[in-house]
């Protein structure tokens, strides 16, 4: 699947965006700006964490997914279901009901996302015990973390284990299984139900250049709504003929939750979730302030995938539910079809080594970068250091960098404008035009339909 280098599933709907700048200020890589009254993305800085999606007050940021009808292009339509999907539904609505409803919606087969987690745990332990590789070994499970490291912590990229995620293992397994049944690839459509934007981007433009054989992806919240609608309209699960039960053991079921990988690793491992926590820890790691840790499980979202941006149910209730279910697994009822494919999966488990992503903060050429950095430091003498974002950039530092890279002018800073107006160096009308250029022409107009205003929602 050929895709542009910086494909992002998250999309800003310009017609809906009100240019409030909430997203600009939460982005961990300062990838967003306000221009012409709308939010604007620098694609090479985006790591697909979805924080912007979370804070947008008008839902102007969407996660682009495939049209559900796309599945009908295939004769064999397989839903690749990570266990986090099953955890969204209340007790009583069990995996076997959900699988049945999914089949009713059009899928012909189900494959669970974490069937390959056992094998993956083995491979991780092999790597951890290989002292010749960089330690601590960092899990590649969360694509947003991988990208964050590539952009903001390039020195740590050698620590990331270049291995595919459980969903890739499941996809490879099921595809090979169908091939062995004599069914051509073109008739098999595998569709991943995704809890977030990062997993989509990992599928479409994987960190390394491997195709994982997944044909499309569908947002978790969309599927949840569809499934709940069916259950409600049939009068509850008692009227649904259950499909087969979940085939995951406890540790596979919990793999995508905080601690799920770390608990399977022999050695000293830490689980860290939440963007701020992950960033703080990576900084410590970079400063070599962390000793003797063998494995790091890092997840961008609070409570890991239970806190994914597309997961509709409360993350703590989901975690509680899944932990209880994991204890109830009947080990005797599990089948291990995937084990026949062990060697095949092992042979295809690796991705290419993960390289830093040159985010070009200053320049590729060191002497040009020095000149630019010095210019930024000179410009910072003039900026107030308040990070108010009126200039359209998240921080004064980001604004200074934009000026040096030719993406903005220093006088977009409202503090400077006030000072210059006072010194009669800047005409008031000109200053107003500058603000309009950033925030939109209509920004100064009275508008009673704004959020919080008199006639909001009319």
């Amino acid at each position: 699947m050929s895709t542009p280098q910086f494909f992002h599933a998250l999309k800003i709907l310009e017609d809906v965006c009100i240019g409030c700048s909430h997203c600009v200020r939460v982005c961990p890589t300062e990838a967003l700006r306000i221009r012409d009254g709308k939010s604007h993305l620098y694609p090479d800085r985006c790591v697909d964490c979805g924080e912007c999606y979370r804070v947008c007050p008008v839902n102007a940021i969407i996660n682009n997914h495939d049209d559900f009808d796309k599945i009908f292009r295939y004769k064999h339509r397989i839903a690749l279901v990570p266990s986090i999907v099953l955890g969204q539904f209340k007790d009583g609505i069990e995996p076997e009901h959900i699988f049945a409803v999914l089949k009713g919606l059009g899928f012909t087969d189900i494959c669970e996302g974490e069937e390959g987690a056992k094998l993956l745990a083995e491979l991780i332990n092999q790597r951890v015990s290989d002292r010749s590789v960089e330690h601590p070994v960092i899990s590649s499970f969360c694509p947003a973390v991988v990208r964050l490291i590539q952009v903001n912590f390039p020195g740590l990229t050698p620590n990331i284990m270049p291995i595919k995620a459980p969903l890739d293992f499941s996809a490879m397994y099921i595809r090979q299984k169908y091939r062995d049944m004599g069914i051509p690839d073109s008739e098999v459509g595998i569709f991943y139900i995704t809890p977030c934007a990062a997993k989509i981007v990992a599928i479409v433009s994987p960190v390394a250049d491997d195709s994982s054989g997944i044909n499309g992806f569908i947002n978790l919240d969309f599927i949840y709504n569809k499934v709940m609608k069916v259950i409600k309209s049939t009068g509850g699960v008692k009227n649904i003929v259950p499909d087969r039960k979940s085939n995951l053991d406890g540790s596979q079921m919990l793999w995508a939750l905080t601690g799920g990988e770390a608990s399977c690793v022999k050695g000293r491992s830490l689980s860290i979730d939440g963007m701020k926590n992950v960033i703080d820890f990576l900084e410590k790691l970079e400063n070599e302030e962390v000793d003797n840790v063998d494995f790091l499980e890092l997840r961008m979202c609070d409570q890991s995938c239970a806190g994914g941006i597309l997961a509709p149910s409360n993350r703590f209730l989901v975690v509680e539910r899944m932990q209880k279910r994991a204890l109830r697994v009947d080990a005797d009822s599990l089948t291990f079809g995937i084990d026949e494919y062990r060697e095949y999966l092992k042979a295809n488990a690796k991705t290419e080594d993960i390289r830093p992503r040159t985010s070009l903060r200053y320049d590729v050429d060191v002497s040009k970068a020095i000149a630019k950095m010095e210019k930024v430091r000179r410009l910072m003498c003039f900026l107030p250091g308040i990070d108010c974002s009126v200039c359209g950039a998240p921080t004064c530092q980001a604004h200074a960098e934009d000026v040096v890279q030719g993406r903005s002018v220093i006088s977009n800073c409202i503090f400077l404008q006030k000072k210059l107006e006072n010194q009669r160096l800047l005409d008031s009308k000109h200053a107003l035009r500058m603000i309009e250029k950033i925030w939109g022409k209509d920004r100064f107009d009275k508008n009673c339909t704004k959020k919080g205003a008199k006639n909001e929602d009319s």
Partner: protein
Amino acid sequence: MRLDYKVEGGDFARAGWASSQVKKVLKQLGVDQNIVKRVVVALYEAEVNIVAHAYRGEIGVDIDAEKIVMRLEDEGPGIPDVSLAMQRGYSTATPQVREMGFGAGMGLPNINTNADIFNIETKVGVGTTLEIIINFKSNQ
């Protein structure tokens, strides 16, 4: 590009501040990670030496496209026997300093290993000046 830092003797809480700042700058400039590591180790050891042994000191860092030049000048006791000080394990750290985890006697040798050029000028009773140069395109 010129960066300047002041170091106070005995201020262990802030020891490592200069090396942390320089590291940020080099990272943003896109300098190779292995070179950055060497710079940080050398600068950190030199900075801690000022904190552990001297009264106060100043660090001047000059970065250009080819190399980084670090000059650390302190007011302090000076080093009576430089070749002795350069021996691995030899340390003149006080018990208080050792209690804090420093004073293993590896500071100067570590700087020597990581630097391309390393010069020491010292005068007993006055102070010590270190000059550390690391090239960005190094073969070490």
